[in-house]
């Protein structure tokens, strides 16, 4: 487990509830994640995984309860927190009609990054896209887009990276590249990943969480988890999402 510049725990979630009417997307979610950990969140469709990540990344407000990321409250310290988090999604979150470099420069400007040009060049080199930096991203393959979106997420040197099913839609080669990129930055980042793929998710994580019907079914360190029993628990939740 590495160190980030976060003071205190990476995640502190208490009684987190997100409801609109009768349906509760999240219902009293509680857990704590130490700094530098890698959390994999599992759960059937509609379990509330995306809602949880959206709250932790300040895109949605909770209806009740509190969540602190990096010691910062997701509601009251939202603006400051946005400097500390990055998101890699299965969607590239890039403008297809801008070049690779323009995309990164645009987001650098949004984050107010000093010496943006150098930072962008460095990042493009590290994801091996410097030779394509002047091409518009519409022409990129799925794997290249994913690499560029990692560069986008790392622009402002976030402490916590959120991964929303980053492997979906990637070919095996692109998956390998993504693996090695994650391994490179694993040391000084905390990771929170949503995953459908049990094997992949368990392989990477240090902590695992199963969500169903908006509730935490299981949360533990990987070392304490018996994989067979874990798979059994996960299987039992499938279908619970659809009430």
């Amino acid at each position, binding site marked *: 487990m590495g160190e980030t510049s976060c003071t205190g725990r990476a995640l502190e979630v208490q009684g987190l509830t997100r409801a*609109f*009417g*009768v*349906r509760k997307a999240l219902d009293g979610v509680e857990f704590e994640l130490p700094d530098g950990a890698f959390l994999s969140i599992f759960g059937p469709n509609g379990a509330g995984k995306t809602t949880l990540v959206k709250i932790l990344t300040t895109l949605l*407000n909770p*209806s009740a309860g509190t969540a602190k990321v990096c010691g910062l409250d997701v509601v009251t310290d939202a603006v400051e927190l946005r400097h500390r988090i990055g998101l890699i999604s299965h969607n590239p979150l890039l403008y297809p009609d801008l070049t690779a470099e323009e995309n990164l420069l645009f987001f650098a400007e949004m984050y107010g990054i000093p010496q943006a040009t150098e930072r962008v060049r460095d990042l493009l080199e590290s994801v091996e896209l410097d030779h394509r930096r002047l091409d518009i991203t519409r022409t990129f393959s799925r794997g290249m887009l994913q690499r560029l979106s990692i560069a986008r997420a790392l622009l402002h040197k976030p402490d916590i990276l959120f991964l929303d099913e980053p492997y979906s839609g990637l070919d095996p080669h692109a998956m390998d590249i993504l693996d090695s990129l994650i391994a490179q930055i694993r040391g000084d980042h905390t990771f929170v990943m949503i995953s459908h793929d049990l094997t992949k998710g368990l392989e990477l994580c240090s902590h695992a969480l199963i969500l169903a019907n908006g509730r935490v079914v299981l949360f533990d360190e990987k070392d304490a988890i018996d994989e067979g029993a874990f798979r059994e628990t996960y299987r039992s939740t499938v279908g619970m999402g659809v*009430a």
Partner: protein
Amino acid sequence: MNRTKIARLVLVLGGMLTTAAFLMTFFWANPSLLPDGRVDFSQKIFYFHVPVAEASFLVFFFTALYGVKFLLTKDRRYDMRAKIATEVTLFFVLLTMATGILWTKVAWGVWWQWEPRLTTYFIMTLLVIAYFVLRNSVEDEEKRAVYAAAFGILAFIDAPISFFITRWAESIHPVVLAGGKSSGLEAPMLITFIIAQIGMLMLGYAFYEMRLHEEELKERLEALKVKVGG
């Protein structure tokens, strides 16, 4: 006494007042005269046309008010109230349009005239309809509520414009609520009108509460079904 009981009482009272106003319109209120001295029977439409129109403006205000309250609290109950207020607005707006068109035919000889009051009120009708079109095209419940609230607030701007337009622009539409000299209503006419107005507002309130009660029951039913069905 709970809200539903009050609503039913108000409904009965409103019904009684409007019925009384109806009878007064035809048996008590003195007839309005045409410039040539003949009796203008079509003016009788105004005793209900105007109260319904005023009620539509007033209820529409609650769409905007509950819209603001919803955005500030994100409390779903306000969204429901805004929706119901708009529904009652739609009901009154359509009634206003229908009675207005009948009167226009008598007084102006045509069913429809593009004059400022009619035009702006027509626009308001379209806005109220658009409110529901918007609601129906948003799947996510919370998004729907937020968008509807925002649109309701924007749409309400047309209500004061339509209300005051007869005073600002050259309009041939009569100004009934001008106050003072130009309304020219004699006491029996004015009293009849006021009773009809109060009755109609009470009906509006009762409709709103009844529909709200219905929606709340629906919700309780949903919750119960979830409990049973698991």
